[in-house]
């Protein structure tokens, strides 16, 4: 990936984009393809999945057989570098010492950010998901609705390549014909669960993931995405042809050297670079957004980590896509006479209403899956099926004791062994060793499975971040302090999740490894743990009760926008990345129009 150094930046740009992940990548792509001149700032190092991805390395060649450590907290071969739950020299703090009120913050300091590592699950929010308050009186409605975003979901899905099927389920939108790539065939355990869950009234259907199950249609998609723009069409067609279809090996979390999955580094940034309109500076740690006396953003001050020097760069428009919490932090650290509490914080709501995904899991073992004939179940490097939330009507009728739903992701199959392989198997073997143990391992291999819930959290007053009054990072910048508390809605939802998983495992003829917990607080994953943190600069239709408007434009500073999860005012069970990209494209289109009209 070509990059420039801090000394080579232009005097001014049309747009500065802070962050190179899903939102920043999409924004930079949209701007540069339309001809706008963009400077992208990334806090981490340059990173090239084509040359750096360990595609076929096996765990025997990794330290500690590849298991997670503090240095590589999602496993040795996970693509995340210089990050994870901790970033050296860049701490964050928790307001409470109560372990059940902690918040975990996953950061990646690398080009492409967390898109290199993510699970590729790409679900659309449905119509209900934009109007949750109207539906149950909790949380906030978005100032936009599904129809506003649907065209951008279509475009993003065509651009990045998403497999899946259209099943017409409630609040689980179909994509237009020809947009989705064909779903992969399901694995043995996935099929068995599908069959047994059907008997329980739980629909299991193909999941949507950003993995190319076939080559993209490079002859037709570019004209649909960039009508009337021959240069953009040519660049995108070339970029699409440079991507291979999945070859059915390698976990997607390692990244993908053949570009079969969406990563910003292989999908958004190469065409953006090819336009000649993108300058990219890595190792650029943003200090603050600069705002002039008229209340307009003039640019960004950042620290070049390679030299420690400060730089100022200027643009007509500033777009924050640093990840929701990091964007909030940048603004809280940007103080002027006009904005003593941080830029764009006249509402006092900056940092408020952060949300993550409600999650727990339950593992089990299914005798029917023992001793299956040997076959390859690597598949698309992640899940092939899932269960969308299926109890909308019961919930709406007040028959459940929690207000928002969850979808089920589950994991089965004959996977490549990792360091913890067969750990704790004595719950099935009674402690065998020797030849009996070897026979047991063969027998049980592929017969264990795990169900996980991914549910909607309702924003609440106890979940927010602010600046720690004393702690600073190695650049001298105040760090974030997180406040967290689950409400009874999330805890009751988790209890329902665990009971559901037990029911499915038993319907498959299996047994659970551990019974559902009596106290859901002990099994709900901590805040931030699912890495779906959004909010902190919620959008709304009232400047006193939100930070941004329906275009993710800050109410206070007209040329300052968000293109990450910060403006989310609800966090549906649907994994947020696809929506972040769709909203980023929509916001970038809006900025381009306003720039053309001379309004920015």
């Amino acid at each position: 990936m070509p990059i420039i150094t801090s000394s080579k930046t232009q005097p001014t740009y049309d747009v500065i984009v802070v962050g190179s992940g899903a939102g920043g990548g999409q924004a930079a792509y949209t701007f540069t393809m339309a001809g706008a001149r963009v400077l992208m700032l990334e806090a981490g190092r340059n990173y090239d999945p084509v040359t750096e991805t360990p595609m076929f390395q096996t765990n025997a060649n990794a330290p500690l057989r590849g298991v997670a450590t503090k240095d590589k907290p999602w496993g040795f071969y996970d693509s995340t570098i210089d990050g994870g739950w901790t970033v050296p020299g860049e701490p964050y703090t928790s307001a409470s010492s109560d372990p059940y009120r902690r918040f975990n913050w996953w950061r990646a300091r690398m080009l492409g950010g967390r898109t290199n590592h993510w699970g590729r699950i790409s679900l659309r929010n449905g119509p209900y998901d934009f109007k949750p308050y109207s539906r149950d009186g909790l949380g906030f409605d978005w100032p936009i609705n599904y129809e506003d975003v649907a065209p951008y979901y279509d475009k993003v899905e065509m651009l990045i390549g998403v497999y899946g099927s259209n099943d017409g389920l409630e609040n689980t939108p179909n994509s237009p014909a020809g947009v989705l790539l064909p779903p992969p065939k399901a694995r043995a355990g996935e099929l068995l669960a599908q069959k047994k869950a059907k008997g329980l009234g739980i629909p299991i259907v193909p999941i949507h993931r950003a993995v190319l199950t076939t080559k993209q249609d490079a002859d037709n998609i570019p004209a649909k995405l960039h009508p009337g723009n021959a240069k953009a069409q040519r660049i995108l067609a070339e970029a699409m042809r440079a991507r291979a279809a999945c070859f059915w090996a390698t976990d997607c979390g390692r990244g993908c050297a053949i570009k079969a999955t969406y990563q910003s580094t292989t999908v958004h940034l190469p065409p953006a670079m090819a336009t000649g309109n993108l300058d990219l500076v890595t190792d650029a740690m943003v200090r603050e957004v600069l705002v002039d006396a008229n209340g307009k953003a003039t640019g960004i001050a950042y620290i070049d980590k390679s030299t420690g020097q400060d730089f100022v760069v200027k643009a007509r428009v500033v777009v924050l896509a640093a990840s929701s919490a990091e964007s909030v932090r940048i603004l809280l650290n940007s103080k002027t006479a006009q904005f003593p509490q941080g830029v764009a914080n006249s509402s006092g709501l900056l940092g408020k209403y952060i949300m993550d995904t409600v999650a727990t899991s339950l593992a089990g073992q299914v005798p029917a899956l023992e001793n299956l004939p040997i076959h390859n179940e690597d598949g698309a490097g992640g899940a092939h099926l899932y269960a969308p939330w299926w109890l909308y009507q019961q919930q709406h009728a007040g028959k459940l004791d929690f207000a928002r739903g969850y979808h089920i992701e589950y994991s089965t199959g004959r996977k490549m062994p990792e360091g913890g392989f067969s750990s704790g198997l004595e719950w099935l073997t009674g402690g065998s060793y020797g030849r009996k143990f070897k026979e047991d391992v063969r027998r049980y291999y592929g017969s264990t499975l795990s169900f996980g819930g991914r549910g909607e959290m309702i924003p609440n007053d106890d979940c927010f971040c602010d600046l720690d009054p004393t702690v600073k990072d190695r650049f001298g910048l105040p760090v974030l302090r997180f406040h967290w508390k689950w409400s009874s809605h999330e805890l009751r939802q988790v209890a329902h999740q665990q009971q559901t998983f037990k029911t499915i495992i038993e319907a498959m003829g299996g047994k659970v490894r551990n019974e559902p917990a009596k106290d859901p607080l002990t099994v709900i994953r901590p805040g931030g743990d699912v890495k779906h943190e959004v909010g902190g600069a919620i959008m709304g239709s009232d400047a006193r009760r939100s930070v941004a408007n329906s275009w993710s434009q800050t109410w206070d500073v007209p040329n300052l926008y968000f293109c990450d999860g910060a403006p989310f005012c609800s966090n549906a069970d649907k994994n947020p990345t696809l929506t972040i990209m769709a909203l980023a494209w929509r916001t970038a289109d809006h900025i381009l129009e306003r720039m053309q009209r001379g309004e920015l």
Partner: protein
Amino acid sequence: MDRRTAIKWMLTAAATIAVLERDGVAAEGAPAAAKGYGTDPDLLKAYKPGDVWPLTLDATQLATAAALCDVIIPADAKGPSASSLNVHLFVDEWISAPYDGHAADRKLVVEGLGWLDEESRRRFQIPFVNLIAGQRNAICDDICYAPKAQPQFAKGAQFFKKFRDLTAGGYYTTPEGMKDIGYVGNVPLASFDGPPPEVLKQLGLA
């Protein structure tokens, strides 16, 4: 193993406790001074135990570890023994790692290996490596399943569980171990065809 540790391990249920004062494990439980591989390691390089941080076990301990590895995973028709794949060196790498939790495993494994020899000498007057299979099994039967272990073997069972987990993790991640269980992935395919017909038939999904 020092006297206090030995007593803790053997408790008092055994009629005689032949506590042997031995040296060589003074460092047990001490935090490793070494550093880890850092947050941006070379992912394409092949690593082996000892490449990133120094190892812990001496020759006697390694021999005991290798012997125990093979009690847990011996050679059979489908795969070689654990020690022939140097799984005991992976155990050493594990307990020597400078990451959270590994110091506790180091203490457990180093003390456990010492205890195994003590127990072997107590029962059979020779070290564990010199025992015949039936003698090794006599000890391991007492510690192979923590929920049913006698109180005096509780700590030994905790050690055995950890050691079995490490041995399995070390073994089944090797090419030979993956072949043993029938993992046939990690190869590029032109298409993914789902389960073969015989699998669907066995599951009643055909």
